[in-house]
């Protein structure tokens, strides 16, 4: 941390930067400052492997001169550092092109949620390092002691962050908030008959007391790695595919890419131009909600100073809304949905709040029980999802479903189809649990190609 600078001092620094940018010719300006205190502890085979602790800060500035935009950032928050940042952004604005859609949100769109979103907890900010290390040790130990086939480990880890965010713009917005984060994970390695596998489990919370117990984290990780042992490659075939919640979340990640405004105005999404159309089965309702207290996707305002809100994206299979920042909203002649997201560098892109799929009726077991021959996916690797065309092809690991039951482990196969077909034939289970900022229950895709032998 800089000597003498407290979080409370940062809004004033950002306000000054915005004022000075205007004095130098900017017609509009916005400044964001973020800070973080990072801690991480990794233990392996019962011993501390790494301990890391540090804090950092950075400021970013975006200026407009008419409809030209320039931006800059610095890790130097001294008056000289801020001056350089301003000069740099103003210079660059002279080199960009007039963009009729560039600009800050309207003053009437700015604001901050007044409810307490419970983003900050003293239980994280004030937690002694010993307790964090102890949690990581206990999680790993629980995994290692679970079964004799668990012979090795990539460790247990505890990570925490105490962050702060300040945002100021020239249309009168000043906002700031602090947030905390902590996570605990275990990564055991199991071996049997010459085959070695690893898997993991993790828990995240804004409050230390919101974490699952270290013993539970270790045990879940152990159960997950054990059920991978003895995996075989199956024959190539078309079958129903079930995504466990961790994998359903990856599918939501793909869908986010396809509904965010930049992809839409560029026609670079298979969902572009489909508002009001049926794009998924009736059981599919996808929501973005940045207003739920205590969750990871919640924040009082987005990275342009627009309050967070709840936006139904797909309702009962009908595409209702895209997720937009001010720029993409103007391109599409719509209103921002409060989804502007940026780091310190560059312009605002688009992020999500709590992006989740509403729960269905059946339990995961009931869904599996209805499948004679199918694939239950527990891990996906690779980047083989094309959200422009909808083509989907990824490496997969999981359990084969035979006669309604999880029968044997499978690996070194791929699952493929198109996102269009996958959504059209999807069935949702009832096990929705909020974990991180993307949440989804177990889901079943009617048919995909499993490629193997």
């Amino acid at each position, binding site marked *: 941390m800089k000597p003498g600078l407290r979080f409370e001092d940062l809004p004033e620094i950002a306000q000054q930067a915005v004022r000075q940018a205007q004095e130098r010719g900017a017609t509009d300006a916005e400044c964001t400052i973020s800070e973080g205190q990072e801690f991480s502890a990794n233990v392996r085979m019962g011993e501390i492997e790494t301990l890391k602790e*540090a804090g950092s800060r950075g400021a970013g500035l975006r200026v407009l001169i008419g409809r030209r935009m320039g931006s*800059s950032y610095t*890790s130097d928050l001294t008056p000289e550092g801020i001056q350089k940042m301003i000069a740099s952004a103003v210079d660059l604005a002279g080199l960009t092109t007039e963009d009729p859609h560039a600009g800050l949100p309207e003053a009437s769109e700015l604001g901050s949620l007044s409810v307490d979103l419970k983003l900050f907890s003293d239980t994280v900010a004030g937690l002694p390092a010993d307790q964090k290390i102890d949690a990581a040790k206990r999680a790993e130990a629980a995994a290692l002691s679970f079964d004799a086939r668990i012979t090795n480990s*990539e460790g247990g880890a505890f990570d925490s962050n105490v962050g702060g965010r300040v945002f100021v713009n020239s249309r009168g917005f000043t906002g700031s908030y602090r947030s905390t984060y902590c996570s605990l994970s275990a990564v055991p390695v199991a071996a049997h008959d010459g085959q070695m596998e690893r898997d993991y489990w993790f828990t995240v919370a804004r409050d230390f007391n919101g974490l699952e117990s270290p013993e539970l984290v270790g045990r879940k990780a152990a159960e997950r790695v054990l059920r991978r042992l003895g995996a075989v490659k199956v024959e190539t075939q078309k079958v129903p595919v079930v995504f466990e919640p961790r994998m359903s979340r990856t599918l939501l990640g793909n869908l986010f890419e396809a509904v965010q405004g930049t992809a839409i105005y560029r026609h670079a999404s298979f969902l572009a131009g489909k508002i009001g159309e049926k794009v998924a089965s009736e059981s599919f309702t996808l929501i973005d909600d940045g207003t739920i207290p205590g969750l990871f996707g919640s924040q009082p305002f987005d990275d342009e100073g627009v309050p967070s809100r709840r936006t139904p994206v797909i309702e009962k299979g009908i595409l209702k809304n895209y997720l937009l920042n001010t720029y993409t909203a103007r391109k599409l002649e719509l209103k921002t949905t409060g989804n502007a997201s940026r780091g310190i560098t560059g312009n605002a892109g688009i992020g999500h709040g709590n992006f989740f799929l509403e729960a269905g009726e059946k339990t995961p077991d009931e869904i599996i029980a209805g499948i004679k021959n199918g694939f239950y996916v527990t891990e996906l690797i*690779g980047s083989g999802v094309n959200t422009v065309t909808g083509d989907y*092809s990824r490496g997969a690991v999981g359990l084969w479903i035979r006669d309604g039951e999880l029968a044997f482990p499978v*690996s070194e196969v791929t699952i*493929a189809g198109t996102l269009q077909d996958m959504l059209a034939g999807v069935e949702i289970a009832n096990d929705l649990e909020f974990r991180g900022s993307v949440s989804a229950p177990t889901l079943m895709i009617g048919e995909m190609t499993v*490629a193997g032998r």
Partner: protein
Amino acid sequence: MAFTDSFFASKFGLTRHDLENYLSEALSRGGDYADLYFEYLATSSISIDESIVKSATQGVSLGVGVRVISGERTGYAYSDDLSPEKIRHAAQVAAMIAAGPAKVEKTPLEEGPRRNLYPVITSPNETEFRKRVALAQRADIAARAYDPRIFQVQVVYADNLRHVLVATSDGMLNYDRQPMTRMSVFALARDKSGPPQQGHAGGGGRYELDWFENVRTPEYFAREAGRQAIVQLDAVDAPAGEQVVVLGPGWPGVLLHEAVGHGLEADFNRKGVSAFSGRIGQQVASPLCTVIDDGTIGGDQPGVTGGRRGSLNVDDEGNQTQRNVLIENGILRGYLQDKLSSRVTGAHATGSGRRESYEHIPMPRMTNTFMLPGDNEPEDVIKSVPKGLYCVNFAGGQVDITNGNFVFSASESYLIENGKVTRPVRNATLIGNGPEAMKYVSMVGNDLKLDEGIGICGKEGQSVPVGVGIPTVRIDRMTVGGTA
């Protein structure tokens, strides 16, 4: 250049004495080893979309990371403020990993051997901004002109200039100036009726800006992105199941990066969690395969000043990079080491300790990974295949190092029918198992090519620039994740 003229000494007044004092502070609780990594990073980026220069950004970050090793334990702290009290504080925090009396013997810092693989005089980051904007605009114009079916073009130009200084408690002092530039072109094409298809091309490296005039022009990348998008308009469904796969030269070398490279990083092997652990001296690929990781490749075309994207004069732990043989005629020869792994296992340094920034702990990483050429003419390799898949471009890959399963996603591939390349197919993922997959390599072309300079490798949350390369290669059996 003497140390006193180096970036951190001249700009921030750092002296050897300061560095030695910080290292002593880091070892004040008895650690076995400590190092300091100073980093100054200036970045710029320009984005053109819809022929509008929509974004121009630049900025600077600066900081120092302090690491203390005690046995197999690592303590790490960093500061974005180079004032002596902040650096000392970071050193004290990192020192907490050890518990014991201070280490008394001090090794005086000595400058390591110096060389310059990328003697870039003016880095692109120091070039007039307007010139860089003009380059990006040329790519936009050329991509749009390539074919009337191209309807969207995005160009991203980005460069950076990094100054680093490494000082270690075993007496090593090294510093480097690392320029980097990169251009990417994304094109979207559509026919009247069908859905849009995308193409992507780009490249760069540790070059001066005139590399984009003399070696690879914006128009070259633009045409290539346009070509890929247009090709995909006629794509048919990819096959599903085991196929004969022929990889084209260049970027398909990502196979080596995923199938073997990561699995040979020493941290995983020291811990026994890699599918390659304990396999040195064993056959892990066909005898036709020799795989190299080489961080020393300079300008490899005549008249080119500069180095490849994955090249470094010194790694991020102060060691000179080198050419490392990973697999020789199919036999596993060695791992890629970082300081911690070579200390623990007694292995020689391989110059592979890398990190994303001063905020990150170094790890063993790849640099430029490629397979040596063989004897086959590329066309003979294709002719030999009655039915299979010819893959020429990839969108990336991933590996589970423990079971060895890896994937890489083909973004441009074609059916091979009766020894001829025929129709383009849709994107598909290829999957294999590291120590097994390369045993099926049955032909290796004489056309080794390195990629254009666009690779980013992610590991445990840290991204670093890398290169790959491969000649045309025939793999007799690999699972293709299509739908047909």
